[in-house]
């Protein structure tokens, strides 16, 4: 895991001091609401429906147990004793007081955390695969590149007042994309060319929200040393030419679409020619230095014992969990464990202070003191010995983190919606709960196989509804809450944006509607076909007919 040097620490402390000053100036009337808004947003501080909200950065989703315990502490001292993990691998406090935020930032800085650029129209936290560094088929560990981007984008002087927010995601797996790079402003796919050199395929102009679009590849191979200058060229073109007259058309995706990806790529190329050989070009030394922070931990050689196989054979619940919630690790004898935060009745992503501490204990005892946050709002213990899985499972189960529903219909991605968010058109958490309650039979869920169901409370799409196989969107009709359903979205390598099924539904209908959709799938699927495959094969019509059929 990356460790701050004096230099990083100093910058974060200077930021705390700067923000404290800004907060004081706001309270003394020296800064207007509007001016403070732009400044507080670049520090993760929103003002929401019921209270302010502070979003803390978790660079590329990595957290140490020490940091987890600090989050728990802060949630007790300044909040209501829980935090919320988001689809952007960050964490949010839902109930802080503005006046306390400088102190919270101070406490965070002690454990190498901050809220820099977690919101606002600047370059946000760079996200990546939650299995980075431990999964077998990645080209190389993407985290060092994320850290290089993090440093470069932190307080980037030219790009602090972009037309709109800006998100970069990195994927290094040729077989799967857990970082959803095609729905980011810039998506970087790490690849190797024929000479075996590492570089990036660069996608640009993806994004969700009001106009969901998939990114276009504007460069097939960017040498790794050119990463930062090329990013700079892209964002400079955007900064100058992105629309500023209309907030809803301000994202880079609108510019790329208006110009066409080819013309946009040419502008970037022209810009880049001027800066590609500048001192901002990365050096091998720097890449190696940052890679050094992500060296493999001290893995033990795990003696293969029969006990693990016996535990699996003799305990069906454990076997289920192993099958669903663990992934193969690149080191023999180890597993990647996902703790699911999707127990029915608890809003997806929410974790209480005592549970945070429990996860920290699990990380210390079984996974080198580190965890990762996944974009689907679950928590990963990346390095667990197979011989420890049974213990981890028992402890996780007692805490409610072992619901073996990873990637199943009830592993719902859900934004905070109308319960917390000032922008919401409708609540989303109760919809998640309604669906989870309806589909509570695990055998049935396993039979259905992987299905992604995502819910957003408005078209900003924080809950990724466009890329859910089944997407649910809260809409407002004359002041009343309704829900629109879309089908066929997907965030992986073959990413696609879902299509709207038809007119929207009342809240209490939602579980019924989902059930009808599932039934159409069951009746039409062939062996081994997942929901998405069936949808792609048979199209929208059969689903539409069933859902909107007149009752006889």
């Amino acid at each position, binding site marked *: 895991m990356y460790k701050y040097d004096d230099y990083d620490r100093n910058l974060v402390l200077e930021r705390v001091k700067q923000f404290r000053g800004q907060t004081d100036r706001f309270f003394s009337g020296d800064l207007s609401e509007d001016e403070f808004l732009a400044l507080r947003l670049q520090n993760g501080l929103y003002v929401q429906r019921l209270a302010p909200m502070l979003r803390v950065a978790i660079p590329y989703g990595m957290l140490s147990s020490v940091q987890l315990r600090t989050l728990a502490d802060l949630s007790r001292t300044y909040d209501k004793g829980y935090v919320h993990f988001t689809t952007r691998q960050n964490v949010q406090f839902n109930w802080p007081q503005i006046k306390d935020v400088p102190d919270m930032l101070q406490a965070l800085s002690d454990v190498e955390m901050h809220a820099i650029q977690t919101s606002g129209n600047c370059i946000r936290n760079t996200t990546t695969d939650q299995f980075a560094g431990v999964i077998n088929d990645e080209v190389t560990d993407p985290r060092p590149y994320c850290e290089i981007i993090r440093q470069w984008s932190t307080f980037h*002087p030219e790009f602090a007042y972009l037309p709109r927010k800006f998100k970069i995601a990195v994927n290094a797996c040729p077989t799967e994309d857990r970082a959803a790079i095609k729905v980011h402003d810039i998506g970087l796919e790490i690849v190797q060319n024929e000479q075996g050199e590492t570089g990036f395929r660069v996608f640009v102009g993806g994004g969700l929200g009001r106009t969901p679009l998939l990114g276009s590849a504007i460069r097939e191979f960017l040498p790794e040393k050119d990463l930062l200058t090329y990013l700079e060229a892209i964002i400079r073109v955007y900064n100058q030419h992105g629309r500023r007259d209309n907030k809803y058309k301000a994202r880079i995706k609108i510019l790329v679409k208006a110009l066409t990806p080819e013309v946009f790529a040419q502008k970037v190329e022209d810009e880049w020619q001027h800066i590609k050989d500048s001192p901002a070009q990365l050096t091998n030394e720097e890449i190696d230095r940052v890679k050094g922070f992500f060296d493999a931990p001290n893995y033990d050689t795990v003696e293969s014992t029969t006990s693990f196989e016996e535990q699996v054979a003799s305990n069906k619940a454990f076997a289920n969990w192993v099958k669903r919630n663990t992934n193969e690790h690149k080191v023999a004898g180890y597993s990647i464990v996902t703790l699911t935060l999707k127990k029915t009745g608890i809003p997806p992503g929410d974790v209480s202070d005592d549970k945070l501490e429990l996860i920290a204990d699990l990380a210390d005892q079984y996974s080198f003191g580190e965890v990762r946050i996944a974009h689907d709002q679950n928590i990963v213990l990346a390095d667990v010995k197979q011989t420890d899985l049974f213990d981890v499972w028992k402890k996780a189960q007692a805490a409610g983190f072992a619901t073996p529903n990873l990637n199943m219909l009830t592993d719902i991605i859900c934004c905070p919606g109308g319960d917390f968010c000032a922008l919401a058109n409708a609540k989303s958490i109760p919809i998640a709960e309604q669906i989870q309650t309806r589909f509570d039979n695990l055998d049935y869920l396993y039979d259905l196989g992987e299905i992604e169901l995502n819910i957003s409370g408005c078209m900003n799409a924080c809950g990724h509804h466009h890329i859910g196989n089944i997407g649910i969107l809260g809409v407002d009709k004359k002041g009343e809450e309704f829900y629109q359903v879309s089908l066929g979205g997907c965030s992986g390598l073959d990413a696609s944006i879902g299509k709207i099924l038809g007119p929207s539904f009342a809240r209490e209908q939602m579980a019924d509607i989902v059930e009808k959709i599932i039934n159409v799938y069951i009746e039409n699927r062939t062996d081994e076909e997942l929901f998405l495959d069936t949808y792609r094969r048979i199209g929208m019509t059969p689903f539409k007919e069933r859902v909107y059929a007149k009752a006889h």
Partner: protein
Amino acid sequence: MPKLIKDSQIVEDNWLIIDADFEGDLPEQEVIVPLAYWTENRDALASRSNVGVWLDSHQEPSAIASDVKSLPVIAINFPKFADGRGYSYARLLRERFNYEGEIRAIGDVLQDQLFYMKRCGFNAFAVRADRDIEQALNGLSDFSNSYQAGCDNPIPQFRRR
């Protein structure tokens, strides 16, 4: 006389900014004219050494690329502090067009932008008139170092380790 932050000092500002819709004859004193006026009267103005140009946030610096050697001041307007185009313009003027004269931020210029502006090549700041310029001066030193290359230091931090 209005005040200006220039090269990290508070100084008297002698330059008069000419409005975008100005018509008629310019005063004899130091003036900063809008781009349109400059383009129209370029030949007549070129003989004066006390005329600068200001760019609005949608006017790219390439429009004055061939004049940068002779201009004593180039001002960039921030109609709203959140309009960040001027940051790129200043960098381009310094790094692409090798402009060495004064680059001045005008318009909605506030304390909290100064550090970034300085890094992008601005060396003069006409802080908004309703703000305390003494206090704004502090904004230039919010941070003691930076990761990325900028006009104040073209060598990024990773090459300075």
